């Protein structure tokens, strides 16, 4: 008699996520989507104001190399009450730097449920889906959902006149951009969550004094 060959249960797919708050509301983002976590203090002096009245959630832009990152106010994006952001997420494969209250913890999700189809408005662009963490339902944000192509077009257009006068990032007389020479990671989307840049530890020289060590976030220090 032959015994049946035991079949292995397929491994559960998991995804590491960062739980964060915007205006007190809890959200999740795949940690692989977060390229950097910075203190907002490190943006001071580096972010340039945008005179673009049509998009209230974006008031500043920062430049790194040839790329502009638009600083999106998370509360305004989601229609939440105003708050004083403490951190900024630089989102991988986007041109978004997202202002948030703070990080709750890093954790793992084992199941992502598609957003129910009853939600049929803009939120479908905001969220990848919803997940349950410790019996709490948390929406998982879509990094590319913070700025639509149309919004990016408007924002890019708003930069052009100033660009002709002086290149953004030309910091004559201004403090160095937080992103100039900063510790941006490679754009490899497969980097794991724990590869979120720790700005101070990677700062090559003291010219990056715009990134004081005390303002940087060590992912290892996130509550698990």
């Amino acid at each position: 008699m032959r015994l049946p060959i035991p079949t292995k249960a397929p491994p559960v797919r998991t995804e590491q996520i960062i739980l964060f708050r915007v205006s007190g509301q809890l959200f999740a983002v795949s940690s692989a989507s977060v390229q950097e976590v910075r203190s907002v203090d490190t943006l001071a002096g580096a972010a340039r104001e945008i005179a673009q009245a049509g998009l209230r959630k974006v008031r500043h832009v920062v430049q790194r190399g040839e790329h502009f990152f638009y600083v999106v106010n998370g509360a305004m994006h989601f229609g939440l009450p105003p708050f004083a952001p403490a951190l900024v997420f630089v989102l991988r494969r986007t041109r978004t730097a997202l202002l948030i209250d703070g990080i709750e913890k890093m954790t793992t999700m084992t199941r992502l449920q598609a957003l129910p189809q009853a939600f049929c408005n803009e939120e479908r662009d905001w969220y990848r889906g919803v997940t349950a963490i410790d019996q709490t339902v948390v929406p998982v944000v879509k990094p590319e959902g913070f700025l639509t192509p149309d919004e990016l077009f408007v924002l890019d257009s708003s930069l052009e006149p100033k660009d002709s006068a002086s290149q953004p990032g030309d910091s004559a007389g201004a403090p160095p951009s937080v992103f100039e020479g900063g510790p941006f990671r490679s754009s490899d989307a497969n980097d794991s969550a724990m590869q979120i840049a720790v700005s101070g530890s990677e700062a090559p020289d003291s010219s990056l004094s715009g990134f004081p060590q005390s303002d940087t976030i060590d992912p290892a220090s996130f509550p698990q």
Partner: protein
Amino acid sequence: MTPQTDSESFVLLRLAERRFAVAAGDIAELVAPSRIFRFPHHTKEIEGVILRRGRIVPVCDVAARLIGKNLRSRRFYLIAQRRYATGTEWIALPVTGDCELISAEMIPASEADLPHVSGWLSHDGDVIEVLNLNALTPGPLAAQPTAPVEALPQEAHS
């Protein structure tokens, strides 16, 4: 031997003083109210979501549309199946009283009826609207199927 009739099963639900009916085949279960989780969105008919049997179920208060006011208190959530072009999903409808399973003959709605009325039935001296959940609850604007379709897996991954 009793003669065969064309009666169908319906679940009667109560919203304040009024009763409405939903085809019994569209009902998943009746559950006690549980915590509603809210997050930002722009679909005003949806209050939030509840967790039920591992599923995340949107809560849609239909009272404002049916009786002209929101419910002050709710006794149960009637979890119904809402059909979409790509499948069916659960939706939780807050109700204010016990629900009742009945058999009755439905008179189909006429063109003069509102879109969320799929028909009428007579029960205990009342004329009761049979609700068309596809028209009553929000969803994509795509055309809705008239026949049930297999539910798609809800998980993006598991």
